């Protein structure tokens, strides 16, 4: 566990929100599913800590960007499923564009030559 904490990537705050919203765009999903999806879609690189995932989910729910319902899963288990709200979709768009700006900016800083050519 200590090892795990040391290996954490310090991503910018709000990134997890973005990842969650993006994941929910493919359809309603429960917490475990979200963490699995993020892990799979990042090529097994990103592993979401549950101590961050659930607070984030509940925070997003409180901000009404996502909503939650109890559903029965395929293997007959009661699970709490989150879905993206209309407000959440808007938020996703704005967060995405913010992220893209940021990553462009960072890319620019890391390789100024390319930017000069473009």
């Amino acid at each position, binding site marked *: 566990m200590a090892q795990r904490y040391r290996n954490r990537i310090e991503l910018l705050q709000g990134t997890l929100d973005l990842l969650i919203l993006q994941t929910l765009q493919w359809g309603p999903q429960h917490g475990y599913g979200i963490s699995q999806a993020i892990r799979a879609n990042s090529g097994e690189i990103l592993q979401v800590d549950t101590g961050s995932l659930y607070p984030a989910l509940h925070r997003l729910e409180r901000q009404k960007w996502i909503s939650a319902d109890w559903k029965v899963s395929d293997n007959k288990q009661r699970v*709490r499923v989150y879905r993206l709200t209309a407000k959440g979709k808007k938020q996703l768009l704005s967060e995405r564009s913010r992220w893209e700006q940021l990553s462009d900016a960072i890319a620019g800083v890391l390789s100024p030559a390319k930017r000069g050519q473009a």
Partner: protein
Amino acid sequence: MKFPWQRQDRQEELEKELQSHLQMAASDGIDRGESVERAQHAARREFGNVALVQQVTRDQWGWLWLEELLQDLRYGARMLRKNSGFTLVAVLTLALGIGANTAIFSIVNGVLLQPLPYPRPEQLVVAARTEPRFDHPVPVSGPNFLDWRARATQFQSLAGFDGRGFTIMLGNHPEHVLGAAVSFNFLSVLQVTPVLGRDFLATEEHAGNDHVALVSHAFWKERLGGDVGSVGRPLILNGQAFIVIGVLPADFHYVMMRDAQVFIPLNLDKTSRGENFMSVIGRVKAGVSLRQAQSQMDVIARALEKEYPKDNAEQGAIVIPMLTSVGTWIREALLIMLAAVGLVLLIACANIGNLTLAQAVRRRSEIAVRSAMGAGTNRLVRQCLTESVLLGLLGATLGVLLGYYGLQAFRILSPGNVPRLEEVQINLRVLLFSFGISIFASILFGLAPALRISGVNLGYAEGRKHACHLRGSARLDASGPRCHRDRAISGVACRRGTRRAQLPEAHLHRTWLRLAQSFDLLPVTTNTKGHASGILLPRSA
């Protein structure tokens, strides 16, 4: 937003949610071909500390502050009970300070601040004469008053008042009562009407019609037997018969002369301009400011000075709000007393501050352990202040009680010339004041130990030593703690921790939680909260 009473349900929901996560993770493991036990263990290890995840998730719900406040209060109450000697001394000290302040403030409030007991009291003023050789307002003469009344257009009206004593004959017994001669419009200036009978008429200010009287409700009840028929009957005042024409309301009294029981018309027919004996009150017109009223009175006074240079040379007029005028002579004394009791409270605060500081030193290891288990500095400071405020509220409650008796004592001991003293009471405003200053005081004396915690952060340093890195079970796991075994609480925890270091994490969590709960403090918030991104790389990366 969830309300506190819904929390229990929500807590269970969250638990189920996290359990379902664990189950799904475990069944995925089984699908991959792991044994049931192994899969469950792996899922749990991957998940981390369930209680911790619950805690940090709950933090997102709001209302946490309320829960923490209740926790702090409970904890504070327990601490105060535990240190009952300290609590007793502190509460008594504080109660004395608060009590003195409550008593004096209730008088200040009743005498100087409470609105006068008449309609639209802010319009009421006292008009008086000024003369260079006096540094305070002085009485007015009859003719000057009549001129003022006739010319002062900024006022609804001005009325004259002259306090008098009467000898009344009730049967064959002469008795002395206090009363006043007032101009016919005196009651209309105060906007008071008799409950029985009628007010004076303008003509009754003059000889021939002026043998009429209004009596107070108390006088009517006690001396006239509360008889409705007594209105219209004569009353012998100073050997002359006056017809009782009306009875004043039960709650009426004249603030400048509370004992006045009998009012007769003020006949100014035979008074001279140089004979200054009466006081004047007035009611300014709606929307007229004190300054406007004053400037008009200045104009009138200057005109009268020219018209009657012999009697009115260098004489001005001054308009004072009636409320100010009532408390004029006692204002200074009251404010000095208020300042004095304020100082008493400050001294009390300093003393209690010393006591709490000593307490804080005594409780250093407790604070240290709490800090080591993840209570943030903010939380500790808040706990400290909560205890002080609790102490303050206890002190205030007792203090208000003391203040009540103090006020009774003041009433008995006062020379009897404090205006409106009967009106003084411990009302809502006084209570707010008392509790306000008690909270202010408790923050004042709670600040010293609180600052000590936040400044030096002794908790952190010592806590690491005493509580053996209880911050995370992972640490226990990895390093194997060394600890001071002589420290009772932390020592037990440590020994337990050492023994269990090899056991599965779940056990450790339980031990840890139990320890945390024994301090009435759910562990952490700070350590996991700090991990903003919460995204981990797998161990191999």
